[in-house]
């Protein structure tokens, strides 16, 4: 367990080394990044083997940092954070493998990537709201440069939109935290200290503080109607960044909601519970319907992320043991599956075909040209639809059961969203990979008839990365108890119990 903080330091050191290595050769930077990401992942797994689940956070580091403001450098972990740490390790390692073909400014790319990863590890490990906030912001800046520099379609717009939404969200969080701390006369930024300070505020103020912090974090989790940064940002991002953005960074928002916002004020949560749940289910259905209409394969995946994150928010809003543990499981599951989908679309397909238009892909068709990519996409799509045997199934099922217990109407609408998800996923699979040449609406490009399309075969790095992610989703699909045994005890902590109680009528 005490190894966990080293994930942060290792990633930061790796970032410096990758930057230095990139000056020598691109290959050095790649290997440094791979070793760093894999090393940090192994650290999380080692910690996981020695992890004894229990209620409450298990302190790893606790040192005084800014004594005059009561800020402590306090890192701690419980089952929830451990789940997400392992996810970060997988996503980061796979992300490096899927960016093996970055040739331009390779060192800087991997340095920014690893700083982002370090920030993510830091958020999941923080036990002090200010430290969490700082790591959260550390993660914002690299995102902008990763997208603006190495991205594709409309990258500068997508990058700026994403950075501003993230920063606006984090400003709301900062305003809320400072409000609770300064006005409530708080002595520090520990989660319990803040909850205590908030409890001293008037009811209206508590409701406002909760709204600022929750919706600030939820912006990054892609809550409807603050989700519009996600599809544009994900589409514009380079593959590894979209894998990390959709896979892990959106979870930062959801994690912040769960760890900071919910315990902050039971009064505020009780007030906002129903609106949050309705926004979540509207997001699930709306984003699903929008995904159904997309002509760009990556936009389908982008909107599907928003739809799947809606389940996480619904789980948090329903606020019973099942729903919340399902929400955490869904964070893990979606992290893996979204990573896989973006990897196929961004790296395997787009880097070779240079198009993501469903109409073009349909005319190729890809199941002949890139059979591995097609197979992986089918597996990922099936997992994303929530079929049994993959991690999406236990996650969405527990969320739906939990939501049903709280309010059947939420569960009913969300279940509709599952149908929509099946529809847009099948459509993407069918049009993107299993079309036929006859379906081409326009005449084929000049010369295409004489020279059948040839693509460079899927590389070993991509195959390893894909198998890694598929392995993870299948493993958790078959044995969800592996993670649930970590998550459920963590939900017994007094702070989270108080929050859950507030959400139970």
């Amino acid at each position, binding site marked *: 367990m005490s190894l966990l903080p080293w994930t942060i330091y290792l990633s930061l050191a790796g970032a410096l080394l990758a930057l230095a290595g990139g000056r020598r050769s691109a290959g050095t930077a790649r290997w440094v990044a791979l070793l760093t990401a894999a090393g940090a992942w192994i650290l999380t797994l080692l910690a996981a083997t020695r992890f004894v689940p229990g209620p409450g956070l298990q302190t790893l580091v606790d040192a005084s*940092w*800014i004594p005059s403001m009561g800020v402590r450098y306090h890192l701690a972990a419980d089952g929830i954070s451990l789940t997400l740490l392992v996810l970060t390790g997988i996503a980061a390692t796979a992300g490096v493998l899927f960016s093996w073909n970055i040739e331009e400014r390779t060192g800087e790319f991997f340095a920014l990537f690893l700083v982002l990863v370090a920030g993510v590890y830091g958020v999941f490990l923080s036990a002090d709201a*200010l430290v969490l906030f700082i790591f959260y912001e550390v993660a914002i*800046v690299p995102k902008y*440069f990763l997208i603006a520099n190495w991205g594709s379609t409309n990258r500068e717009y997508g990058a*700026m939109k994403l950075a*501003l939404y993230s920063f606006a969200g984090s400003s709301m969080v900062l305003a809320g935290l*400072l409000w609770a701390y300064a006005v409530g006369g708080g002595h520090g930024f520990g989660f319990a200290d803040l909850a205590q300070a908030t409890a001293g505020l008037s009811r209206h103020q508590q409701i406002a503080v909760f709204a600022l912090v929750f919706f600030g974090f939820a912006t990054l989790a892609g809550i409807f109607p603050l989700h519009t940064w996600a599809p544009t940002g994900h589409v514009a991002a380079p593959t590894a960044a979209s894998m990390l953005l959709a896979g892990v960074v959106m979870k930062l928002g959801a994690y912040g909601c769960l760890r900071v916002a919910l315990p902050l004020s039971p009064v505020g949560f009780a007030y906002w519970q129903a609106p949050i749940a309705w926004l979540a289910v509207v997001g699930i259905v709306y984003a699903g319907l929008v995904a159904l209409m997309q002509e760009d394969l990556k936009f389908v995946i982008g909107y599907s992320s928003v739809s799947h994150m809606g389940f996480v928010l619904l789980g948090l809003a329903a606020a019973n043991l099942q729903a919340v543990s399902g929400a955490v499981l869904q964070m893990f599951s979606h992290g893996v599956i979204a990573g896989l989908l973006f990897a196929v679309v961004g790296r395997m397909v787009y880097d070779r075909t240079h198009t993501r238009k469903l109409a073009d892909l349909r005319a190729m068709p890809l199941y002949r040209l890139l059979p591995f990519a097609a197979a992986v996409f089918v597996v990922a799509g099936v997992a994303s639809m929530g079929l049994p045997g993959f991690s999406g199934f236990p996650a969405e099922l527990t969320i739906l059961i939990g939501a049903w217990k709280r309010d059947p109407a939420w569960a009913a609408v969300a279940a509709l969203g599952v149908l929509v998800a099946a529809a847009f996923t099948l459509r993407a699979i069918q049009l993107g990979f299993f079309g036929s040449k006859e379906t081409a609406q326009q005449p084929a490009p000049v010369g295409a008839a004489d020279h059948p399309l040839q693509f460079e075969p899927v590389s070993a790095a991509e195959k390893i990365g894909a198998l890694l992610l598929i392995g993870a989703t299948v493993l958790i699909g078959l044995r969800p108890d592996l993670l649930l045994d970590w998550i459920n005890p963590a939900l017994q902590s007094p702070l989270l119990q108080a929050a859950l109680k507030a959400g139970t009528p």
Partner: protein
Amino acid sequence: MNPDYSGLFAALGPETALVLGALAVLGLDLSVFRSRTRADRLRLALSVAALAVLAAGASVWLGPRGPIYGGVLILDPLAVATRLGVLVLTLLTLGVTRAAAELRQPAEYVAVMLFAATGLMLMAAAQQLLLVFLALELASLSLYVIAGFDHSRRDSAEAALKYFLFGGMAAAFLLFGFSLIYGVTGSIELPRIAAYISLQGADPLLLVALVMVLVAFGFKVAAAPFHLWAPDVYQGAPASSAALIASASKLAGFTLFTRLLWPGFGAAAGNVASLTGEPGWLPVVAVIAALSLLLGNFAALAQSSLRRLLAYSAIAHAGALLLGVMAFGKSGPAPLFYYASTYGLATVGAFGVITAMEAGGRCEEITDLAGLHRRSPLLAACLAVFILSLAGIPPLAGFFGKFAVFSAALRLGGVAGPAGWLAILAIALSTVALYYYLIVLKQALVASPAADARPIRVPRVAALTLAAAAVLIVWFGLFPSQLIGLF
């Protein structure tokens, strides 16, 4: 009162060192180095000046504390910290000053810079209205001169004239205000004025005088609506002059006026915890802060010139710093000093990058930064640190400045009153600010260089100086207690 000349002499050691340094710079330049090249003369002048600044720093460090010469000067922790801050910022400014065509008399330029620093040092400690005014004028007059030092550009002359006219007007207001204060309270000693006000209450005439003082304050720190000189001066003045004006002068200005307002006129502060508070100078400062925050941030969005953007961002930062001034009475000087000094570091750094870039070509528009990451990775990395610190991204020092100031402002009666609203407004506007800062960084780190752009060679001293400023910003960001804990 027995005049304590030896105590005064010990307390004025730093100022003595600076003035002697300035004289040595002038003397050596006129005698020994007269026939050397301009670059050599500048190098010598800068070395001597740097030695003088270091000697002054040692003298501050070792010098006496407490009231000096019957309270004309006060060397409390805030004064000492500000003096050290001014010296560090001056040293950094000297480090990025470069030999350029516009500096036809390099020794005079450096000497006047040292005179400005002398004035700023006195401003940090002055506690008697007469000395306050003299220190302010010494600093201001020197700064007018170096703002207009570039004879080859009309912009520079325009900057100096604008700065001088606005400054002269502000000084007139200040002097008028001081004379009213003297007339009402019968003293120019700050402690006695404070005692008078707390006994007699705030006279309406005194409030008029305070508004006049605030006009000068607004001018000195470039707060709206007294900001009009700032964009032109930042744009027209030689970059190193602008660096000094934007950093050390601001830090000393905040210390000076905060000392006037709180220990001096604290009893006439009024109340900003609720809208129906009693009258005083705090509500006026609140209005100035709100105007600065709004105007600075929104006007910066429209800028295409890098220096003008920095100027409007400076106005926005002045607004946030004024929140620190408002919170001084309750939270002490730590948030204000931390914010002002780290802001100064980032600004000196940003202007240092501009100076270094001007050596290799143009650096007027934001788009002139294009491809900086190729042309000079060091400059690009340093600029990223400075700009992100200005934007308030943790773990850089700029974040903790905002954090400390805003939480101090929120403690002034919570969100019920103007102070709390201002803090929330400032947090909201930081998102707006991020946009224009990212526009700058996008050019420097993402865009590809122009076709005719060449790599930039950064002189070793300037490179070291910029790296030192960047390291300080990271250091104070990682260990904010190093500064906050001083008080």
